[in-house]
């Protein structure tokens, strides 16, 4: 068979895949994707686990190591059979949290830590790179088998394959801009490839068993006679390999992609739990027979990794060989495509986008060009990843057996396992723990597995292999901590995962999770409690009319209708209701986000479309936004309440000022009156006297007396005003000292003893013998005022004033009670005010400031003066200041 024919067939096959993928994408876009979402397709898509390594390598593995290759199938089988335990959780979390990759899942769980995202991405890139190289190598080698000049132009072939795969992946892997959307075309293509590789391997197997060996019975004889039968089972390798392949099955980016991200319905897992192990069983069924026959019929130097191809060719079965070639080609390409999609998503989301966003002002401004940046970064990531794989292939010189490279990649990705298991089972796991575990595991893996894979003298020198770096024997790559003699793989898996897990647990216990981590932790660990139903995305279920009604509430009637009509037109539909496509939902969400915020918009749309459960994260965001609005409005409320209070205070102050102004006017008016009245008399009489007209000396004497009295009245008024002003302003200086009450009363009575205002004063001397510590002159001033008021106003025929001293409620009081008719009630109310004189103020002689002054004085002294309304006559009570210890 010519190489050209092979190339032609190969190209046709690839074109066929393109067509199938393209067609499936179209169907999905048109919403006719029901059978594309079947459990069968899901199961077949899982077959990307079986790469070229499995397709070709398993036979080589069996030829070299006997039954050990089975472990690579047993691990995933255990995981699938036990899907209820772990896979179901992962799928549920993936759906409810809208997870885009394993890096996304882990970083989401650990509080959206981008550091974790970057670490896992780095691990994925480094772990996937050799794996891609492996696929390139197998395809290249299989091409070479058919080549006219074996061994030539291998790198060119690898380059062409890599470039072709990059083109396919870019074309179908980044078609849908929604990072979370499923890749229908790709999934269908890999399902087809899954069938091709299974059929190819079964065909070769049946050819070997039934044609070459002549039936199962004689086949067993051949196997028994082959070196395979002599291989013994090494339990430690078996254990480690089963565990490793199980972990890799879960952690490999491409497996996570098909298993979780591309999952349409959780129930598909139940089907896959038996169908996928069956697939693996069929894939492994003829591995040993092919290996045994290959060893038997082919020359010793033949590469066992290529037996699947070379055995049919040996017997000139070109068509079978071609089928086998396509099977291997399928295995390699499907793996590379899905891995490139998965890893490029991680690189784009966790490395490129954060950098790009941080380079821009305004951070996460969601605008149209973000999407083109996402697409571009994913495309570049795919190209970059394939370039790395190609470079790894070139520099590793295609060295090492396929299986060895595969296991190295497995071990690398398995470093995610402790953090992943912790993420979904242990609420105490923290981001620091995860970062520490992954970093430690990654480092140990690099040192003990990845770098040594280039061989002694490759990157690590032979000397370091022998004696450790800087002669530190404890750190020899394949004999860490001085434990020598272990199988290198067992050694690397053991130490990397042990130290990884240890670091993860220790640091998690020592650090505290952030609130978001706590919440995400609870959500992840209790995912089934938080999301009883996680139905698949069913965009068609959303009623356009419901959406319109909701949008109108948010966007406003006119804007919402315009949006719907324009969408309907762009879909080529008449009327105002467009089909509810994911693209439309996205557009709507963007529009609504402008009004109500992104989180709210998403949550509302999800409620109506019922496509996905509203994630806890959505709710947190909604709550955050609501909280912000709440805070803002409560701030506004507080502000308006404050304004209200201020307005009230201003109003009160204003009223007070108006009242004060009125009071001041009244006061000035009063003062004017009180000053002008005596002035009038003085002026009149002085003019009379000046004219010196004929008047008696008695008249002259009398008028002079009036002038004199009025002058004194004026002076007294001015004195009172000044006194009151001083008292009111608190500028008065009190001259406090120890003095007896009776002495003060004596002084006051003496000062008021005028013949024209005679009043009989009755006292109780024993009661008055009270020591005081106060300003005696001021207190006497009050007493004088009260006594002289009694003298002026008491209307009894024989005016009497009773002065009583007694204790009341622990305070000493002095009552001044006369035997007159008392103060009229209307005067009682105002008499302590300034200028509030009783009715007949001719008799008063004062300006009406006396009682106001009394009250001010008593307040300064720490007591009070009040009127006792229910007594016979006028009754004033002076409440003396509280007794204080006289200063020594």
């Amino acid at each position, binding site marked *: 068979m010519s190489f050209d024919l092979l190339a032609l067939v190969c190209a046709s096959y690839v074109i066929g895949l393109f067509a199938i993928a393209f067609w499936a994408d179209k169907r999905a876009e048109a919403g006719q994707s029901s059978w594309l979402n079947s459990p069968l397709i899901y199961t077949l898509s899982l077959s990307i686990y079986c790469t070229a390594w499995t397709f070709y390598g398993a036979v080589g593995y069996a030829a070299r190591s006997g039954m050990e290759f089975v472990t690579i199938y047993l691990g995933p089988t255990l995981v699938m059979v036990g899907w209820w335990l772990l896979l179901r959780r992962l799928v549920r979390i993936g759906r409810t949290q809208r997870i885009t990759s394993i890096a996304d899942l882990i970083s989401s769980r650990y509080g959206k830590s981008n550091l974790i995202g970057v670490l896992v991405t780095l691990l994925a890139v480094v772990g996937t790179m050799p794996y891609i190289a492996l696929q390139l190598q197998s395809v290249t080698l299989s091409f070479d088998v058919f080549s006219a000049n074996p061994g030539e132009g291998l790198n060119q072939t690898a380059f062409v394959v890599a470039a072709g795969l990059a083109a396919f992946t870019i074309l179908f892997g980044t078609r849908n801009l929604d990072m979370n959307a499923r890749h229908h075309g790709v999934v269908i293509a890999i399902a087809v490839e899954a069938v091709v590789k299974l059929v190819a391997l079964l065909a070769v197997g049946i050819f070997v068993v039934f044609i070459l060996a002549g039936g199962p019975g004689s086949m067993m004889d051949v196997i028994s006679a082959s070196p395979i039968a002599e291989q013994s089972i090494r339990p430690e390798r078996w254990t480690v390999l089963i565990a490793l392949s199980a972990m890799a099955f879960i952690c490999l980016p491409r497996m996570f992609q098909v298993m979780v991200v591309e999952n349409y319905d959780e129930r598909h897992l139940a089907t896959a739990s038996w169908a996928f192990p069956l697939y693996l069983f069929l894939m492994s069924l003829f591995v040993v027979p092919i290996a045994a026959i290959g060893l038997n019929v082919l020359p010793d130097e033949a590469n066992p990794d290529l037996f699947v191809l070379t055995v049919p060719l040996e017997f000139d079965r070109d068509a079978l060989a071609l089928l086998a070639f396509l099977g291997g080609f399928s295995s390699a390409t499907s793996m590379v495509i899905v891995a490139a999609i998965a890893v490029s998503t991680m690189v784009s989301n966790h490395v490129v986008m954060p950098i790009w966003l941080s380079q821009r002002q305004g951070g996460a401004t969601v605008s149209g060009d973000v999407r083109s940046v996402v697409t571009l970064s994913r495309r570049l990531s795919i190209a970059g990843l394939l370039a790395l794989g190609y470079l790894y292939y070139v520099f590793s010189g295609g060295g090492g057996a396929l299986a060895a490279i595969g296991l190295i990649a497995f071990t690398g990705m398995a470093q995610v396992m402790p953090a992943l298991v912790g993420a979904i089972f242990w609420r105490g796991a923290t981001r620091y723990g995860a970062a520490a575990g992954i970093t430690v595991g990654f480092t140990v893996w690099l040192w003990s597995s990845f770098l040594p894979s280039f061989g002694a003298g490759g990157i690590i020198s032979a000397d370091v292999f022998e004696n450790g770096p800087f002669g530190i024997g404890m750190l020899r790559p394949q004999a860490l901590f001085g434990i020598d003699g272990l199988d290198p793989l067992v050694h690397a898996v053991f130490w990397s995962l042990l130290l990884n897990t240890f670091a993860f647990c220790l640091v998690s216990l020592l650090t505290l999770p952030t609130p978001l981590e706590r919440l995400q932790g609870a959500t992840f660990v209790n995912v089934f409690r938080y999301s009883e139903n996680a139905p698949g995305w069913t965009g068609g279920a959303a009623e356009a009319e419901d959406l319109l009604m909701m949008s109108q509430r948010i966007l406003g009637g006119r804007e919402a209708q315009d949006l719907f009509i324009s969408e309907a037109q762009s879909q080529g539909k008449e009327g105002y209701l467009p089909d509810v496509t994911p693209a439309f939902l996205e557009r709507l969400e963007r529009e609504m986000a402008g009004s109500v915020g992104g989180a709210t918009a998403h949550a509302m749309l999800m409620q109506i479309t019922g496509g996905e459960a509203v994630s806890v994260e959505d709710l947190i965001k909604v709550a955050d936004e609501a909280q912000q609005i709440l805070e803002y409005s409560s701030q506004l409320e507080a502000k308006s309440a404050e304004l209200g209070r201020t307005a009230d205070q201003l109003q009160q102050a204003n009223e007070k000022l108006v009242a004060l102004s009125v009071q001041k006017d009244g006061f000035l008016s009063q003062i*004017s009156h009180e000053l002008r*009245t*005596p*002035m*009038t*008399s003085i002026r*009149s009489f002085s003019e*009379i006297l000046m004219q010196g007209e004929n008047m008696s000396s008695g008249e002259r004497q009398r008028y002079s007396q009036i002038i004199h*009295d009025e002058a004194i009245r004026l002076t007294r008024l001015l004195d009172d005003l000044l006194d009151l002003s001083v008292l009111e302003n608190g500028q008065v200086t009190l001259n406090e000292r120890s003095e007896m009450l009776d002495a003060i009363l004596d002084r006051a009575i003496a000062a008021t003893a005028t013949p024209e205002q005679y009043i009989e004063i009755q006292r109780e001397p024993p009661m008055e013998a009270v020591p005081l510590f106060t300003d005696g002159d001021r207190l006497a001033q009050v007493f004088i005022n009260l006594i002289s008021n009694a003298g002026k106003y008491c209307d009894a025929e024989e005016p009497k004033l009773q002065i009583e001293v007694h204790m009341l409620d622990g305070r000493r009081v002095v009552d001044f009670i006369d035997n007159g008719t008392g103060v009229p009630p209307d005067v009682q109310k105002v008499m302590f005010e300034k200028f509030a004189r009783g009715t007949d103020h001719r008799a008063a002689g004062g300006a009406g400031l006396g009682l106001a002054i009394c009250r001010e004085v008593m307040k300064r002294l720490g007591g009070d003066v009040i009127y006792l309304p229910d007594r016979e006559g006028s009754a004033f009570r002076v409440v003396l200041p509280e007794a204080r210890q006289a200063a020594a």
Partner: protein
Amino acid sequence: MEERKVLLIEDEPNIIEAIRFILSRDGWRVDTHSDGKSAVEAVRERAPDLIILDVMLPNRSGYDILNDLRGAEETHDVPVLMLTARGQTKDRELAERLGASRFMTKPFSNREILETVRELVG
């Protein structure tokens, strides 16, 4: 010629005495009344040719009394000289609006009040 009567409604004894002295020398008969409440009745009773009315009186303000006087037919045209110790413009305005013939602020000069009285009862 009939004796001219002036009714002085004022509550300050010294001012009463001063005005009485000034006017009686000029040949007036000076009656006095010092309570606001009964002032209008006193006017009716005495039927004075002129009233000298203080604003700040006990029990009733001079303005209220003036208002009553101007409202009643028999006292409508009696000249009223208002006296006040509160010399603010608004007091003068109020007095003039209520129909006071003249308005004088205390303290006044004897000549001033004499001339005003003569003028009012010319």
